[in-house]
């Protein structure tokens, strides 16, 4: 019997149809259902983003795109993202009101001083100095991670009265709870490495783990902005 006759038979087509149906169900139904079973639901608008501290965010709240960056001040990849991509992002999208950039602390246990750095950054954010402190911590990462002198590094960009306020906030012990909230939120998003960026736009949520190339990020943001 000719094998080719079998391949075009109704049984074979029904078999193929069954397989394709299973694939479509798997692709379109099962995975979103699995995601829906995640402990935290993904926020779709700025209003529904939990634990949003305006001090930890930059840009306009009315921006069409919201980016949450889960970062660790002692992680080299986070430094690369900050120095290579985020500065251009700030100039081209955040300052122009297109992106609302939220800093999320996700200090990893493997880094000895990253939690202290997160505390100083949070304290600085409370007095409106987030950008300056983020910049000095990332720019001098190799120095303070050797010595552990986060305080001295931050003091380099703040005035004496500002530094007094920051130290008081750090010693106050209230910042740990906020950092823990960010970490819990990251675990809800299944963040397993830093940096991880969560994009929210047009009711959609896109997670991305790793350093983003500026050109590719720009194309993605422009695509999101062009989507109605």
């Amino acid at each position: 019997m000719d094998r080719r006759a079998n391949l075009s038979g109704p049984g074979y087509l029904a078999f193929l149809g069954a397989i394709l149906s299973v694939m479509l169900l798997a692709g379109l139904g099962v995975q979103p259902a699995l995601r829906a079973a995640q402990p935290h639901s993904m926020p779709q608008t700025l209003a529904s983003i939990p634990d949003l501290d305006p001090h930890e965010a930059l840009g306009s709240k009315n921006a069409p795109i919201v980016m949450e960056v889960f970062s660790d001040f002692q992680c080299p990849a986070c430094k690369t993202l900050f120095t290579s991509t985020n500065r251009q992002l700030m100039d081209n999208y955040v300052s122009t009101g297109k992106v609302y950039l939220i800093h999320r602390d996700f200090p990893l246990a493997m880094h000895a001083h990253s939690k202290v750095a997160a505390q100083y950054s949070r304290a600085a954010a409370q007095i409106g100095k987030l950008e300056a402190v983020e910049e000095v911590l990332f720019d001098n990462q190799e120095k303070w991670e050797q010595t552990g002198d986060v305080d001295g590094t931050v003091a380099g960009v703040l005035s004496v009265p500002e530094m007094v306020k920051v130290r008081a906030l750090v010693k106050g012990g209230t910042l740990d709870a906020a950092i823990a909230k960010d970490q819990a939120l990251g675990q809800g998003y299944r963040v397993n490495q830093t940096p991880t960026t969560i994009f929210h736009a047009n009711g959609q949520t896109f997670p991305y783990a790793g350093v983003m190339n500026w050109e590719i990020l720009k194309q993605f943001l422009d695509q999101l902005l062009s989507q109605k």
Partner: protein
Amino acid sequence: MMQSSPLNLRRVIIWIGRLILGPIFIYAGDSKLFLPNTHFWPYFFFKFSLATNIANFAFQVEAFKLLPPWGVQFVAHTLPFTEITLGLLLLIGWRLRIWATLLTAIMLGFFVVVTRAYLLHMNINCGCFATPEPIGPKKILEDAAMSALAMLMTYFAFVEARHPHPWTAPASTQTQAQTQ
């Protein structure tokens, strides 16, 4: 003389390869095109954008640091469709040797780039499916197993084509064989 069953080991492996790799490739392409965002079913139908999903997949391609920007865009725009097409062709079985060879080449390519990323300690995700999957020994083993299956399937597809089983050979050939 009694003939052996047409379902010999080579054919079984070809079928296993087609039934495993075909759906996996279709699902891989499908997830890149339709599922990179985390919408809840069925809401994402209303917000679906192929261009946005492809632009998002470009992040994963770029993370391997192997291609220039135009190459990243080329792969991001073609790979998901290629995966779906190859998966379908593998299931259909038409011109199996051609598509199995192409699929094997792509699978070996995946294995090489994933292993390279792991050995270079690149802290990136695989980008294989829609969900973030860090590259580790498990992912490398998965790719190695799939590459081995693809190679076996392709090799046996060529062997089978050279030595078709008497039961499955065209009727005219069988008649000729009987008259000789």
